[in-house]
């Protein structure tokens, strides 16, 4: 039980330092224009996709329920947040963070409304029902006045400007880090254990005193919340949203990130969200073959690593350092004794 050992605190510290370090390095590079606008945008999108993938991983990887409508929650969040900042008349610097909280909450409300009936079903049926809800949300957004129908919303202001290119990235990064942290801490608590137990055997879990309905709904809603927040950031980053952006294919895209990274592995999701957002950009020159290559890679990975790149394994840099030190100290100890 790594997390109960004395080292745990040190691990947390190392991780925190690493996350901050990476952040400041990237921020500096962006502000000095060494990382250009395309790359800043891609970094921001990577963070958004990390939030989406990690939150979906909670439901699909940890709780073990196949969900095909994650993009629906993203839609709810994106519209909530965009409509709020566009209509409230507050300074964007204040309105934006508030709008993100609202986006999350609104998506969570939808999560509850959808989750209560949907979670009565399992497996493929749950997948279908979430797919159905996702489509319903999209079609309704396509028909409402407030969402401006199929035209979608445009002119959503971004905090980033040509002069100051970093604010959106700062938000996205901080939120991604927070999401990862919360998913991690949630997963490794009595609540997370209850959720994993449900994945492993629902009947047994319930017979051991776990309120399975509550935990299924809770995880579902939590994931919806984060998807909503991600949607809010996304809307403000791109500036234009319309319902078709959040269709079934988008849900599948997120699902693929989760499965490719490894179901239940947070670091796996982070890595695959990063790679799958970054790589297509690099392959832009070969656009005709891009999806062909992507599909072949997808199939090959699944064939030879069906549980995803990392499976349930988590990459931990502190642990790695630990092992490294252990080896070095062993070696030095050996050479010492050898020398003596």
């Amino acid at each position, binding site marked *: 039980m790594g997390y109960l050992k004395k080292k745990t605190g040190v691990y947390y510290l190392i991780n925190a330092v690493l996350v901050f370090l990476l952040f400041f390095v990237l921020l500096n590079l962006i502000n000095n224009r060494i990382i250009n606008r395309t790359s800043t945008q891609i970094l921001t999108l990577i963070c958004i996709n990390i939030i989406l993938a990690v939150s979906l991983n909670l439901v699909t990887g940890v709780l073990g329920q196949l969900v095909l409508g994650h993009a629906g929650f993203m839609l709810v969040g994106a519209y909530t947040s965009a409509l709020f900042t566009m209509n409230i008349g507050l300074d964007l610097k204040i309105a934006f963070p508030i709008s993100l909280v609202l986006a999350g909450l609104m998506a969570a409300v939808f999560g509850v409304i959808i989750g209560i009936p949907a979670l009565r079903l399992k497996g493929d049926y749950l997948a279908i029902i979430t797919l159905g809800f996702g489509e319903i949300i999209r079609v309704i957004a396509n028909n409402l006045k407030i969402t401006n129908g199929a035209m979608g919303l445009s002119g959503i202001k971004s905090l980033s400007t040509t002069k100051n290119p970093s604010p959106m990235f700062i938000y996205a990064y901080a939120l991604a880090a927070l999401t990862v942290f919360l998913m991690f801490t949630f997963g490794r608590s009595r609540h997370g254990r209850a959720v994993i137990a449900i994945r*492993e055997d629902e009947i047994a879990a*319930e017979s051991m005193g776990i309120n399975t309905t509550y935990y299924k709904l809770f995880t579902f809603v939590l994931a919806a919340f984060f998807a909503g927040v991600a949607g809010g950031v996304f809307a403000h980053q791109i500036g234009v949203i319309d319902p078709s952006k959040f269709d079934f294919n988008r849900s599948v895209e997120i699902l693929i990130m989760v499965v490719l990274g490894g179901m239940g592995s947070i670091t796996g999701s982070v890595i695959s969200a990063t790679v799958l957002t970054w790589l297509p950009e690099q392959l832009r020159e070969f656009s005709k073959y891009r999806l062909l290559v992507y599909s072949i890679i997808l199939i090959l990975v699944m064939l030879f690593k069906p549980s995803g790149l990392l499976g349930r394994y988590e990459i931990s840099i502190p642990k790695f350092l630990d092992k490294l030190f252990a080896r070095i100290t062993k070696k030095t100890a050996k050479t010492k004794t050898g020398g003596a």
Partner: protein
Amino acid sequence: MHLLLTKDLSIEFGGLQALKDLHIEINNREIVGLIGPNGAGKTTVFNLLTGVYLPTSGAMRLEGNSIIGKKPFEINRSGIARTFQNIRLFKNMTVADNIKVSMHQNMKYNTFSAMFRLPSYWKEEKKVDIKAREFLEIFGMEDKADQLACNLPYGQQRKLEILRALATKPKILLLDEPAAGMNPTETQELMEVIRRIRDQFNIAILLIEHDMSLVMNICERLYVLDYGHLIAQGTPEEIRTNPQVISAYLGS
């Protein structure tokens, strides 16, 4: 007052009367056996008692309170824990975590403390970790704590299931064929442990078992089911010589 009692308990599966008018009573600290031919309805009794199935009619009471219509987790929290005939462990969780899942209901810290790692989280997790390992000592499995449950040999999986049930702090423990798949030597060891559990935790135990050496040895009373009907009850001696039981179940 009886600890656990069923009255006129019946269930049908699409026309098949799996259980008919079952009366059983179990007192505190008793070890009671439930035996009967295959398909007699023994496991069904467990499923009814733990809320997995809903009875067609009848009453079930734990310490005088009806448990009919309650959900499995509520029943478990009110004091009934069980093991399963076909082992249902949380296979991809560690052995210790399997037990900690059961302790969930008795832990206090909330989701917020968990997600932001407040002190209450650390305190309780530490406590629970130590306790889980203590449970494992009952079967001398403390060295297996950090292995995945699916990597345990079959016999130890059965033992882990018992521990997992025990960790929910039940008043009565239902064991469904705990000795299945164990050889006689292992069965003997198991018998000792079941007695020890009863003494140490002060709980009642209701067990289903086909291994007569175990049943006749540790059960204080036996109920015998056949075709969903209670055909006999009494001490092991009485049952052993009951002609109806011999012809339906024991054989010559």
